[in-house]
């Protein structure tokens, strides 16, 4: 049940990136929903399965963009690995830390994927603009992640209480 719910959320996140992202953007800075979903899956699930899901989201993002496949998949995986190692070593109960980590992951994914595409000569904007947009997208996604984390925490608390009640 949990896996189906997770797949549904990820499916909607990827679809929303192509239809709703410009509706919640400020100028050319928008929220990067697939990367945000990948960060949240890694922080919540904390396992090798979460890492595989992050790589899968990267692959789906690759298929939505023109150009070579596998670039986003590789960076989602590598950055997800670092995020996972950090999550397993440090305490992340604080909402602020989780939001900062989510924004950082999104910003780094945007920066690395954009830089790689720029370096191999695919049609993209200049390097300086990639860096500035990565900072903007990461910061914006970090702020958007705060209410999302609050809703997720609230849902998890409700589910936990229901389980205790059943027991």
């Amino acid at each position, binding site marked *: 049940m949990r896996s189906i719910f997770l797949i549904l959320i990820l499916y909607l996140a990827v679809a929303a990136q192509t*239809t709703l992202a410009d509706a919640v953007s400020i100028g050319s800075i928008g929220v990067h929903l697939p990367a945000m979903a990948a960060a949240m899956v890694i922080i919540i699930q904390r396992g090798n399965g979460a890492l*595989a899901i992050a*790589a899968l989201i990267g692959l789906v993002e690759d*298929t939505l963009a023109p150009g*070579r496949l596998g670039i986003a*998949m590789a960076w989602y995986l590598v950055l997800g690995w670092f995020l996972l190692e950090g999550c397993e070593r440090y305490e992340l109960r604080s909402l602020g830390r989780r939001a900062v980590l989510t924004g950082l992951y999104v910003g780094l994914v945007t920066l690395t994927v954009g830089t790689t595409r720029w370096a191999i000569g695919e049609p993209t904007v200049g390097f300086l603009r990639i860096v500035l947009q990565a900072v903007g997208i990461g910061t914006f996604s970090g702020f958007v992640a705060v209410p999302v984390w609050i809703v997720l925490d609230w849902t998890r608390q409700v589910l936990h209480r229901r389980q205790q009640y059943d027991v």
Partner: protein
Amino acid sequence: MTQSNRISPLRTHSRHLLVGVGLATATVLALLPPGLADKVRAPVTTALLPAQRGLAVVRCWGSDAAEAVGNHFTDTRTAAQREADNRRLAEENRQLKAALETAEHQLKLLAQRDRPEPALLAARCVPARILGIAAQAYLARHHLIDAGRSLDVEPGSPVLQSATPLVDCGTNAGVESGNVLLAGSRVWGKIAMTGPYTSTVCPVTAPGYRDLVRLAAPSPDGHPLRFGAKGILEGTGESLARLRMVETTEPVAEGDLVYSQAAQGFVELPLLCGTVARVERPPGAGYWEIWVAPAVETPPENPVILCPQAQPAEPTRSQDPLHAARSE
């Protein structure tokens, strides 16, 4: 801050294996030829279509709801104004429906006749000459200008020359603002303003130029052009015009041809506006950023103004503006 639980070596080992396998897969995918990559893309794009359509509907509902909430909080004066507008538009709608029904009936009657129908519109070609600085100065000295006291013009006010190109055809020759100027079969610009004898030109790269255009991949082997996405071409005042509203899912490459749709319906052949000079895709953006080099960079010697006109008879070959322009 540090967690007390330790990570098992087996789990770490399997994680390294997973990352290695994932990176190897990504490398293989990156090396796929474009044909195979498209085969990987197709099922994902198809699978996302239902959700994209659903979310588009949700977005529409959201916009409608936001508009309804906004309308709810508007004052009564605005509401009354909108009510009046609504009634006026309803009346116009009713009249248009009636006109449409009449037109459809006429179309049915025309379709019943067993003979080929002539084209509704044909292109009329007006040869023009560009007026230089001396010619403009002469006109300013010897002709009246269409500005007076109503526009706060005082006696002795200096007449400044406009930097925009001027041609020697105006409304007396049937020229209207928005008409396309051609150099051969290439678009130089549009008529911006018309006077009785002269008209100002807005070239493709000038600010204020807007045109519906369509991209096409060049075919050096002589095959017919493959037309692609449509977009809006805008002059920027720089040497390159900007092409907007082309989604990043559409294929675009440097060197692609850009054709105007301005003469659609009365000119059969496509009119070249320019070629794609630079293509950029900002991270996370839904639209390409495309810069277009104009097909006509310097003002042509003998431009031709393309004017649509009602033409009951089939246009002959000599009336085809492209044929006339080529014969020149």
